[in-house]
């Protein structure tokens, strides 16, 4: 039995070392005009009010554009991902930290309610860095549309 496990281990190890989480082909040169990006953000994500457009998806990082409104946003929590954000247009807020109850998911949590979070108003040109494990809620100000570019990196 022990020998069997050892043999199976030997056979399994290379597969673990070589298989990426998400295998995507190498990125080529790309140019997308501002108009094309806006177009890409016209369709909401499935089951959501807001929309996001992932440009380059790799196992340990991706680049995404997001459009948020003053409603339909949920508290997010990413156990293993850092969010690096630059606000492009519109005004809003990020509420971060605090204690979340009633969220669903484990490593990636969504929803619930937050107690004791800090509110930071955000405007075009602002830079925000949200560490892994910090719950946060990103909202547009009433009547506004908030757009930002997001670099996601796995810790």
């Amino acid at each position, binding site marked *: 039995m022990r020998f069997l496990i050892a043999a199976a*281990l030997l056979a399994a*190890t290379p597969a673990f070392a070589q298989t990426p989480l998400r295998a995507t082909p190498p990125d080529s*040169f*790309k*140019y*997308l005009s501002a108009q094309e990006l806006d177009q890409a953000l016209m369709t909401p994500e499935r089951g959501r009010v807001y929309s996001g457009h992932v440009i380059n998806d790799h196992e340990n990082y991706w680049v995404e554009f997001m459009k948020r409104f003053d409603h339909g946003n949920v508290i997010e929590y990413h156990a293993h991902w850092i969010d*690096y954000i*630059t606000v492009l247009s519109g005004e809003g807020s990020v509420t971060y930290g605090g204690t979340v109850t009633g969220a669903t998911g484990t490593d990636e949590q969504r929803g619930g309610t937050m107690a004791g979070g800090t509110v930071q108003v955000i405007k*075009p040109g602002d830079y925000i860095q949200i*560490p892994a494990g910090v719950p946060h809620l990103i909202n547009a100000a009433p009547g506004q549309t908030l757009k930002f570019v997001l670099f996601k990196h796995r810790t």
Partner: protein
Amino acid sequence: MTVRRLLAIASLAALPLAASAQTAAPPAPHTIPTDAFVYQPAAEVEALTHRTDGKPQSKIVIDHENYFIEYVTRVINTNAEAHNHWYDYIHVLDGEGSITYGGTQEGGTDAGGGEIRGGKLVGGKLQLLHPGDRLVIPPGMPHIFTATPGHTFTYLIFKQKT
């Protein structure tokens, strides 16, 4: 013992092995402390690359061994560059400029780490750039970023090591 059973045992047993292999590996790629929560208002971000003497300026806001984030303001520039081991993911923030990309970088020199600088870019393509545009420049592709005469040109780069 079926093959399926064996595979199940193997995958269970391989997890701790993968973990121990990681501890035995060379030092972790991240050489700077874990990132904290940061908020920088636009005025501060703008100030990072603001100059009144008409010179270019760039500022790295977060720096890791395998990726970093940089704000860059360009003026007129004719120097070609290529990064053999890095992707440039770029978002144009302000001003007007252009990129000439592709072709061959003749006479460039390796400034270290596969960073090729200078020389002449032959056969490149020109793309005008405006705020809101975005770009991906793959490793090894020579390029020249320049502001349009009379303008400055500011963009945000997410640099990722291959």
